[in-house]
């Protein structure tokens, strides 16, 4: 039952995803590509690309698109998006209801001190997993990667520009 699996998968992602949109890539990849094999790495990379250039929260974009592709219809998209928001919804209401100023307590601060370096590792894992033969088909892929990396790192280029230029390069080079 793919809808139930989708719901449970994205509920977990919504509950455990600390560290923003980039860290979420490794959560979705682990579940959707590795564990359930609903998508190939190349398909998943395309979803990340579209989610980066579409306006709105990247996490919502990725959940909607991955849910759609995994189930093959709009119900999958709806279930994945609802499930990824549900834990936040319950948690944030509990936090505001009981006025837990929990971000200043010592216990929470030390937990986050441990999480921060791990989140760096999760994002690194997301990049490493996507470095495979599906995404790097030849030497031109490596050159495109190097160019994009320098543009983002040195010139602080935004995702829309980088992906638009690389799309044009792909059209011209292949």
């Amino acid at each position, binding site marked *: 039952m793919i809808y139930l699996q989708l719901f449970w998968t994205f509920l977990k992602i919504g509950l455990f995803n600390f560290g923003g949109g980039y860290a979420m890539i490794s959560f979705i990849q682990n579940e959707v590509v590795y564990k359930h094999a609903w998508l190939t790495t190349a398909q998943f990379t395309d979803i990340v690309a579209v989610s980066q250039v*579409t306006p709105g929260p990247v996490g919502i974009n990725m959940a909607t698109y991955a849910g759609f592709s995994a189930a093959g219809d709009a119900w999958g998209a709806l279930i994945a998006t609802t499930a990824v928001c549900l834990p936040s919804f319950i948690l944030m209401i509990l936090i505001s209801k009981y006025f837990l*100023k929990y971000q200043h307590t010592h216990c929470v601060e030390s937990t986050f001190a441990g999480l921060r370096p*791990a989140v760096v590792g999760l994002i690194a894992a997301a990049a490493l997993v996507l470095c495979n033969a599906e995404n790097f088909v030849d030497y031109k892929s490596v050159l495109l990667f190097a160019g994009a990396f320098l543009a983002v790192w040195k010139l602080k280029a935004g995702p829309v520009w980088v992906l638009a230029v690389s799309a044009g390069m792909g059209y011209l080079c292949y």
Partner: protein
Amino acid sequence: MLPFMEREIVDKHAWINRAEFLDLVAVSQAAPGIFAVNMAIFTGYKLKGFWGSFWATLGATLPSFLIILAIAVFFQNYQDNPTVIRIFKGVRPAVVALIAVPVLRLAKAAKISYKTVWIPVLCALLVWAGHVSPVYIVLMAGLGGWLYSRRKEAR
């Protein structure tokens, strides 16, 4: 996203004041899930309780949901189109670069030193080569941070 939210919520509608807004940003970043959605849930709840939260969340997610759905349906029909295939061949390596750069930036922001560099390296290896679920990484890292500070206090 953040300046846009501040302008709408604090300046234009004056739903909450600037100090509350900063608290709200801190809580939304600390809580799990998607930052913009957390902000919407919190603001909505503060103004109108459960249903305020509900409608604010719907507002924060619905435009993305519909746009992505339209794009997904469009690409489903064109995924075998030679032009689309060429474009995505170029885009894929750039996506990897987009994810790789924040690793370096966040490593700096998290003050990773030669003493703590083993933590992100180990986490990345476990997920990449060991296929360990990031859920366990988050649980272990949070627990580790908590235990470490308790041990330091005990001394």
